[in-house]
């Protein structure tokens, strides 16, 4: 009996100690935390978008999503906000690696860059031809968003430019808004000198590392850094570019420039009343209006044009981007979402204008009531209508695939030019470097 008892106890003890030591294994160590990256694992009715600028692009997306949800209650738009550089870098990394894993359904791409993606990775993008009427959109947007006549991008905002001016400063120098219509850049320099004389304020804020103003200038003449096919750099022999460089140098020499080194200083320069004009895209509208104390002191006039070029117009473009659908699961839903909002909905564009001041490039929408509204900030000027009007006359150019690569070269050469290097040498050297880089 005693023996049996001992056996029972002993086996019990063994079992107990065995189970106590058993659970030792999963201790220690640290668990890796999965980070929430891009989530393309969207269901059929869930669409992921990458975009930047919460005040502009993301707001527009939210408006579109709300509209679309009315007809598609299951629809969910998952917006991932990334800086533009991050979007570009992530796209390059993923597409360059030949994978669409982790990529969104829809991505916003700046028009200057779109061709570089479309040409390098044609299979990665979902063709949108036929989902919307391309002829309803501003024609200068169709070039960057299509390849070989096939539409890949749905044009979004207009980068139509205008010259934002401080009417109060100009009046001090003896100018009225009416005097500023259809200027040339030469006129601009003269006015700038007068303004500085009268007010001590520089005419323009420029970042020496950003040649946006050059791009504005050459597009007024229907020219670009690249030839008509968008394949080769077109610097040597580009008269428009040559004149633009000259104008730039004369602006500098006129001593009417306040330099800035980044976006925030740029904004600060005009918000603080340090500069008298801002020649840039319409999208700056919101930032100018951010300084409410300057209400009534601003006006928008057509962008100056190059004086010596043929067929030059007082309309140009800076920036602007379009929506692209990537070739991943859910692309049909994504395409349908874009086509029925950004691609066809007039009311949507009216709402965009009233809510965000965003000007689209969808022509049927450019005549609604919202476009005709007068803006008290600009002395009751019908700015939207003006921008819409100018949008129609923006010369169509082929941005090609290497706008920024060439500009990097030009930024350096511009400094050389400013230091006294001859313009022909400057363009020749730039051409060589650009060609070397593109090979």
């Amino acid at each position: 009996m005693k023996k049996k008892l001992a056996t029972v106890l002993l086996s019990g003890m063994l079992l107990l100690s065995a189970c106590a030591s058993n659970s030792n294994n999963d201790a220690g160590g640290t668990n890796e935390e999965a980070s929430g990256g891009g989530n393309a694992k969207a269901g059929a009715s869930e669409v992921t978008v990458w975009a930047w600028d919460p005040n502009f692009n993301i707001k527009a997306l939210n408006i579109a999503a709300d509209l679309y949800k009315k007809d598609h209650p299951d629809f969910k738009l998952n917006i991932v906000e990334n800086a533009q550089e991050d979007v570009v870098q992530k796209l390059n990394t993923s597409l360059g690696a030949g994978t669409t894993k982790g990529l969104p359904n829809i991505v916003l791409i700046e028009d200057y860059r779109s061709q570089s993606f479309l040409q390098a990775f044609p299979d990665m993008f979902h063709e949108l031809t036929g989902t919307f009427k391309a002829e309803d959109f501003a024609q200068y947007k169709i070039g960057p968003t299509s390849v070989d006549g096939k539409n890949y991008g749905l044009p979004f905002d207009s980068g139509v430019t205008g010259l934002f001016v401080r009417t109060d400063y100009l009046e001090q120098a003896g100018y009225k808004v009416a005097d500023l219509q259809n200027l040339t850049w030469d006129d601009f320099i003269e006015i700038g000198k007068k303004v500085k004389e009268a007010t001590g304020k520089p005419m323009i804020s420029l970042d020496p590392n950003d040649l946006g103003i050059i791009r504005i200038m050459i597009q007024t003449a229907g020219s670009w850094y690249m030839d008509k096919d968008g394949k080769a750099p077109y610097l040597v022999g580009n008269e428009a570019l040559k004149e633009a460089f000259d104008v730039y140098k004369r602006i500098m020499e006129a001593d009417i420039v306040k330099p800035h080194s980044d976006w925030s200083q740029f904004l600060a320069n005009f918000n603080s009343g340090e500069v008298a004009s801002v020649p840039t895209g319409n999208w700056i509208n919101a930032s100018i209006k951010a300084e409410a104390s300057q209400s009534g002191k601003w006006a928008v006039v057509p962008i100056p044009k190059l004086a010596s070029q043929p067929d030059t117009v007082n309309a140009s473009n800076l920036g602007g981007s379009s929506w692209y659908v990537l070739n991943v699961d859910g692309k049909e839903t994504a395409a349908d979402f874009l086509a029925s909002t950004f691609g066809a909905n007039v009311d949507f564009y009216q709402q965009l204008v009233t809510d965000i001041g965003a000007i689209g490039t969808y022509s049927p929408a450019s005549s609604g009531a919202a476009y005709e509204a007068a803006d008290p900030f600009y002395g009751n000027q019908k700015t939207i209508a003006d921008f819409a009007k100018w949008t129609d006359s923006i010369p169509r150019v082929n941005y090609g695939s290497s706008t920024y690569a060439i500009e990097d070269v030009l930024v350096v050469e511009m400094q050389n030019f400013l230091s006294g290097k001859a313009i022909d040498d400057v363009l020749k050297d730039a051409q060589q470097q650009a060609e070397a880089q593109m090979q």
Partner: protein
Amino acid sequence: MKRYFEKFKYHGLFLKMFIILVVSIIAVSVSVSWTTIRISERLFINTFSITNGKVIGQIKSGFESLNTAIVTAVNNIQQSGTVKQFLTEGGGSSLALSKTYYNMNKQMKQIAYNVDAFEIDISVTGANGRVYATNRANWPIADEALKREPMTAAAKAQPRRLLYQYSDGLENENGEREPIIAATKALMERSSGKIYGVMYLVMKESQFKRYYESYTSEGNHVVVLSNDGVIVSSDREELIGQRAPDLLAHALDIEKREIDYKDARFMDKDNIMLADYLSFYDMHVVNLIDKQWALGQLIDTKSIVLICIAIVGVALIIVFLIFRRLTRSLTRLVKQISNISKYDFHHYVAVSGSFETRQLAHAFNFMLDELHVYVEELVKTQKKQRNAELAALQRQINPHFLYNTLASIKIMVQRGSREKAADTINALISLLQNAIGNVSETVSIEQELDNLKSYVFINQVRYGERIKVNYFVAPDCMEAQVPKLIIQPFIENAFFHAFNAKQEGYIYVLVAQEGGDLVCEIADNGDGMELGDGSKLPKASSSRQLFTGIGVSNVNDRLKLLYGESYGIAITSEPEQGTQVRIRLPFQREPEDNTSFQQSS
């Protein structure tokens, strides 16, 4: 109640052993699991502190490499003439300014390139009011606000030190703040000691976190603590920016005592805390492991308890069954044994149950058998002895009796009453024949009566017929067997003692059956006597007795020995009225040798 107590009495053994076993099984399992858990906890905490100590080392070296990159960038900025020019020069023409801005941009891009991988934004502010920022994504602070930042003043106060400073960051449109950590240093002219600017290398706290985040998990947290007790960075975001002086005190204690780890209470939880000092940052990296969580990972209390309960339960069931089997048979045995009454040795116990109890029952039954054998042997021996005694006694016919009787006969012959003499001699012959000749134990009442008659006849011959004897015998009792000479001593007694005062009387001998027993009654109407407490007949020792050895006194003993306690003699006597002797015997028809102690097995 009593029944329960009775039950308990018989199950007492089982209950006692079972309770002891239950208690000890539970005690053993609880103590063994407790000890094992304790040991594994200690082991676990030790291992944990070693691995996490290594982790801290790795975190530290990660931070050091970050610091190296930052220091390189800081040195580059400090040594750059372009930067100095940008921050010190006054106004200038647009062209000149453009050039300066361009060069500054170029220079800073180059410097920033080295820290790009760390996602550090570099800002510099100059004495001339100029600000340059490579990027403001991490900390979109306006130029003027940056100049007013407390960290600017702090950097200027200690111009030679690279300070790592924390800021809650700026509120964005959604009201969220993203905390930042900035490496700040004043830009100072070496020769004059004049401060011409401040640089800020700004990284988001989330970026800073990367150096330890992969080592953290649910209950395993890292906190980076500035030297004034502010939590600068943590994987627990709600802690960032809070003051934790107690944590700082613990960290300083750990670093001072150079211990591996320490138990610390933080946020109402017991933690194992490891800490190290990041000298470059003047910060402390603290690793907090939630003890409850960590040990919860190690020990699944619920399953241990369940397993323990299951094992104890199974053990108890097994023990219960085994014990029940063991004790039940034992209990039954005990019950049987205690039920056997004192003189009742015929109840054998049932042989069943376990081996032990079976053996016990066997032994008990065997003992009973032995006892029977011995008792029987004893009875037999006693009987034999008694018979031998009896035989011997029977043979000791009192010589006086013979002498007297013969003398009486001689007188009869001399007187010429030959008839009577011959009858007397016949009676004596019959008496002697019965007394000596018949050796069988019992005789029928008829024979006994013949003897009595012979004896009475001889006595009447000798002493005259003043005492008359009458016999009343139920006819059915004639065949009944009685021990030899069982009645004669009482007749004799009555003859010689009952009629001392009275000169004549009667003696009655009655034999009848009564309730299955045979009752012989000898009654006289003689003197009677006072019965003392002994109720014994007077001891007779006289020459008038037939036998010297057989007296009334031992008849009783004889009867009890032969038939048992319920049989024997009862005497009632009244002075002047007479004496009654009742002999009670079992009614037996056949003469037999052995009576009551028959072996039944």
